[in-house]
């Protein structure tokens, strides 16, 4: 594996290897000394053209726990604000000897372009409305941890699927790992080309082992996709009453950041069946596993 650009590039064996390595690395997070010498002397650049809290911090923590040097680069306050192109930025990183570049970019496909311009490994940390493979991996890890398996589970991904890179990566990865994925949301926000769809949340809830709620991405919406926030939330928001209609063992996931009261109520988000906090914890282990696989051996 040279780059991690799309969850679709991983076959079941590779994805399982990442999850297994992450499980072994997770123990490090519980120790007093949360550091391994594995990537000593390697440089990881966090190249963020879009705001992000958890993904950037998670990648930074993962790289530092493996002893890599981390350079954080955000578009604000850099030469990008002066008009530097992605290609010129890439050459700068190349000249500085970056062994891996973690990139988040508002344009779909930017990581693929970057991969042609730098010698190091490129990790896609979210590109536009396209993909977010490490989020899908940490979601798969969380599902496996809670449910004991992924193969054969019924996963419903609910909400603004159209603008969601998390949904796209999850569909690709979870199907590779044998889950049955259903996309749920208003017809304007669920592209039928992605897979099986259902426009009625109440219809799929009793049949779901995992319910993954997505954030309504207001910042990417330049059209009116639903009449009002209240109507959206009444039809597609997950509240306590809907939670009780799910099977006993079913879990609720959310990639964050949440719009509490919009797609998910605080009662559900803070319930023991919600995995939202675990997802953040698991994110560090999964990203450590990805960095180890990309940088840990001979290239």
């Amino acid at each position, binding site marked *: 594996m040279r780059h991690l650009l799309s969850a679709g590039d991983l076959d079941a064996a590779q994805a399982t*290897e990442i999850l*297994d390595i992450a499980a*072994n690395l997770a123990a490090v997070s519980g*120790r007093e000394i949360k550091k391994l010498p*594995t990537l000593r002397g390697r440089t990881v650049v966090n190249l963020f053209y879009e705001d992000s809290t958890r993904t950037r911090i998670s990648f930074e923590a993962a790289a530092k726990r493996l002893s890599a040097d981390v350079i954080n680069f955000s578009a604000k306050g850099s030469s990008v604000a002066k008009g530097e192109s992605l290609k010129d930025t890439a050459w700068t990183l190349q000249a500085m000897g970056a062994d891996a570049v973690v990139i988040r970019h508002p344009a779909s496909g930017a990581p693929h372009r970057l991969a042609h311009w730098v010698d190091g490994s490129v990790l896609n940390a979210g590109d536009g409305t396209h993909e977010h493979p490490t989020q899908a991996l940490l979601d798969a890890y969380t599902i496996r941890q809670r449910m004991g398996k992924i193969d054969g589970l019924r996963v419903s991904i609910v909400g603004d699927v159209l603008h969601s890179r998390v949904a796209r990566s999850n569909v690709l990865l979870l199907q590779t790992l044998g889950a049955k994925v259903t996309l749920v949301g208003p017809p304007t926000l669920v592209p039928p080309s992605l897979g099986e769809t259902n426009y009625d949340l109440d219809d799929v809830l009793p049949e779901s082992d995992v319910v993954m709620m997505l954030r309504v991405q207001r910042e990417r919406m330049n059209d009116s996709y639903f009449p009002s926030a209240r109507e959206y939330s009444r039809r597609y928001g997950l509240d306590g009453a809907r939670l009780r209609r799910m099977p006993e063992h079913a879990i609720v996931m959310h990639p964050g950041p949440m719009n509490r009261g919009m797609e998910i109520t605080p009662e559900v988000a803070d319930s023991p069946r919600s995995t939202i906090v675990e997802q953040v914890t698991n994110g560090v282990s999964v990203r450590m596993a990805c960095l180890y*696989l990309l940088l*840990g*051996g*001979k290239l």
Partner: protein
Amino acid sequence: MPYAQIVLSESDVHRIVDRIAHQILEKTQGAQDVVLMGIATRGVPLARRLAERILAFEGLALPVGTLDITLYRDDLRQKAVRAIGRTEEPAGGVDSRRVVLVDDVLFSGRTIRAALDALSDLGRPSAVQLAVLVDRGHRQLPIRADYVGKNIPTALTEQVKVRLAEIDGVDEIRLESSV
């Protein structure tokens, strides 16, 4: 001329494990604060066997842990990415305990160097000792074992192949050469 010869049989391995168990008891005056740490892969069943023998001899149940040293190796960049195994701290941890590292073959000493680093990230033992089934020489670092099953003089072109029942279905140590 390629060849392979059996240097230790199943009964040899059993006798050696019994002897090292006695030596640990003797050298640590009853092994009261001892924990055994098996180095993955084949040090792990050996550590379990030692604990089992010590339980049989003295009725003393020693905590057993496992140490995967892959992430501490100094040759990661020379080889393709390796899978990593599980590190399990022994019950009660390693702080202020006497840790006996257990491995199958002592060769360059680099595995033990990595194991010492891995161990210091788990805590601060009061002392660390090393038990190995086979010492084949050719050390590249100033490391020696406290308990040695058998010293086997080897040439660098030779390989010591350890097979243990828990992993390979049979106890047997062979000396092989492909040249």
